[in-house]
């Protein structure tokens, strides 16, 4: 390590001698000072004019555009958010109203249906009663008719039987009277 350091120092010495041989600082040689000043002023002026007139306004425009766009987008987002909230409220309201209406319609239809059923039932019952009355009348009429026809039939049967058994013809009116008598006695048992 020590030998390396001494080597380094030796080379530093050699190098500094080399630099010394190159003579002074070129910066302090005034030959091209005027030229450097002239070109510096020229180049910098052109650079300054092009930057201030052309590039900076463009970059500023870009930045402003972006800022405006972001602001606009945020505003829009807020607006849409508010709108959607209002719409949601509206939707909820509509839904609630619809629910109420459904209940109302349900109730109304139920009541009308009940009424309808009731009235139909009543009219049906009336009709049924009418029919029953009519049927009863018919039955009673049939009863009456059937008695007289039964009497006639039984009268003729009786006269036929007697004729066949005795060979005599009996008085029809007396047979009739007997049949009527019997039937009057027994009729109530069957009818």
């Amino acid at each position, binding site marked *: 390590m020590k030998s*390396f350091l001494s*080597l*380094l120092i030796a*080379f*530093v010495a*050699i*190098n500094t001698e*080399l*630099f010394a041989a*190159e003579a*002074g*600082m*070129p*910066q*302090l*040689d005034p*030959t*091209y*000072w*005027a*030229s*450097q*000043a*002239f*070109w*510096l*002023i020229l*180049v*910098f002026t*052109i*650079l*300054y004019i*092009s*930057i*201030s007139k052309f*590039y*900076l306004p*463009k*970059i*500023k*425009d*870009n*930045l402003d*555009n*972006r800022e405006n*766009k972001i602001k606009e987008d945020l505003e829009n987002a807020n607006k849409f958010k508010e709108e959607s909230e209002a719409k949601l409220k509206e939707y909820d309201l509509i839904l609630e109203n619809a629910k109420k209406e459904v209940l109302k319609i349900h109730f109304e239809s139920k009541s009308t249906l009940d009424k309808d059923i009731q009235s139909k039932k009543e009219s049906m019952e009336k009709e049924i009663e009418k029919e029953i009355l009519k049927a009863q009348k018919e039955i009673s009429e049939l009863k009456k008719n059937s008695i007289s026809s039964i009497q006639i039939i039984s009268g003729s049967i009786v006269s036929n039987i007697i004729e066949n058994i005795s060979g005599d013809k009996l008085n029809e009116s007396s047979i009739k009277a007997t049949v009527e008598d019997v039937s009057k006695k027994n009729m109530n048992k069957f009818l």
Partner: protein
Amino acid sequence: MQQFTVQRIGPEINIVGVDLSFTNASLFMVISAAVIMLFLFLGSKEKKVIPNKLQLIAEMSYTFVAKMISDTAGSKARPYFPFIFSLFMFVLFCNMVGMLPYSFTVTSHIIVTLIMALFIFIAVTIIGFIKHGFKYLSIFVPSGVPAVLLPLITIIEIISYLSRPVSLSVRLFANMMAGHTMLKVFGGFVVSLGILGGWLPLSFSVALTGLEILVAFLQAYVFAILTCIYLNDALNLHH
């Protein structure tokens, strides 16, 4: 020191006895300015809401300088923003271009930095007198100083004010020159120590290159921010 020599390129231009020839220094000024313009052109060409890389860098440099000005000199310095932006970019790109091998560092010449510093100094002084008239001279008389010390302080203030262009120019010039000289010295060590011993100075050289890139940026920043501070003194007179 060969890297700092100025050589004429092309014909000799002589106007009324003054040699204004195009030199390698002029060439690298032109290259730096061209690179800045190309960079800004590409950075502002597309007006995208979501910027691409180059646009992002251009916009970042814009906001960086804008923030630097508003932080140090306030809103009154807004009209001088293009100048300070140009100055910052020019110094930065001259320094950075100078970092390339075989290139020339424009800002390593005292005459270049001195002209910039003198221009800033004179402009700031003129702005100060335009804005405040003779009241601008109160910059040399700080308030709240005991009457006994006042003459001394005033003299010190005047000297410090007058030495501004010197300190501003020498700072940049010396930093750039020292950095490049160091790189050259270590590069020379690499060659003279050869394959066996050259590795140590080579690693130093690599590290120094990184440091020099940092210094190149830092000196451009310092140059711009000191301009802002001087401008602030001229615009907002409060001592």
